[in-house]
């Protein structure tokens, strides 16, 4: 837990709905790229992202290697009010995990 998470999440009300924006800090290596010395960089990518609103799971995103580096997602949740908790948890193919949460503004 020593390294502070660079994942970001923002949630705000927009015309009665909750707009959620997520930016995760992850290299998303596909396993086909080479580094400077010509060796293959092993695959390392986020596979599973889950989103909770107030302890209810609302969305699951499953990613392949073709999701861009530092994955960005935005979507809306129906309704919602200020102070709702929005939480994201992710797992990559090597078993690394992260989570980030915010309250709706």
């Amino acid at each position: 837990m020593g390294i502070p998470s660079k994942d970001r999440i923002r949630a705000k009300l927009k015309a009665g709905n909750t707009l959620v924006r997520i930016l995760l800090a992850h290299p998303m290596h596909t396993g086909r790229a080479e580094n400077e010395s010509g060796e293959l960089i092993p695959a390392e990518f986020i596979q599973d992202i889950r989103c909770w609103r107030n302890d209810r799971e609302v969305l699951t995103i499953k990613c392949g290697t073709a999701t861009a580096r530092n994955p960005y997602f935005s979507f809306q949740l129906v309704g919602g009010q200020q102070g709702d908790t929005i939480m994201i948890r992710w797992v990559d193919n090597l078993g690394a995990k992260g989570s980030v949460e915010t309250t709706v503004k």
Partner: protein
Amino acid sequence: MIDKLNEQRRVLIKGAISASTLALVATSGLLLPQQLLAHWPTDAFSAEAVEDALLALLGQADIADNTIIQFKVGAPPSYAINGASVPIEIQSDLENIEQLLVLVEKNPFPLVMSLELTPEVKLPFTSMIKIAEDSQVIAVIRAEGKLYKTTRFVEVDIGGCA
């Protein structure tokens, strides 16, 4: 007599070695992600054709094109300078969307992402994806058991699937 003893010893040593190797493999992190992510659809994400990926995920590959999905790829639309991060936006008035897929036909593995939505989630959905070369990009939505598909052609200056 001594020969027989030796033989037994060998069997014993062999057994011990294979048992400890097994234990090592089982406890190392190698097997962990598969166990954790048993629900990650490996078949679909490692399929090399759009049809195979759709079959693996939805059990059906033959979907008629439909204009009910508004689908934007690239900025300006249908064009991307850098294939390593191409913005996509999917909007639709469909209700009760259960699943949303994004596929890029010419990528080594076409399936980019698969979303499972609850009725609480509302489109538009936006994200960034990698596109290897000029290709058709496909969005598939499953809503109330029906499948809808929209296809867009995107021109890419620098391929981005390395």
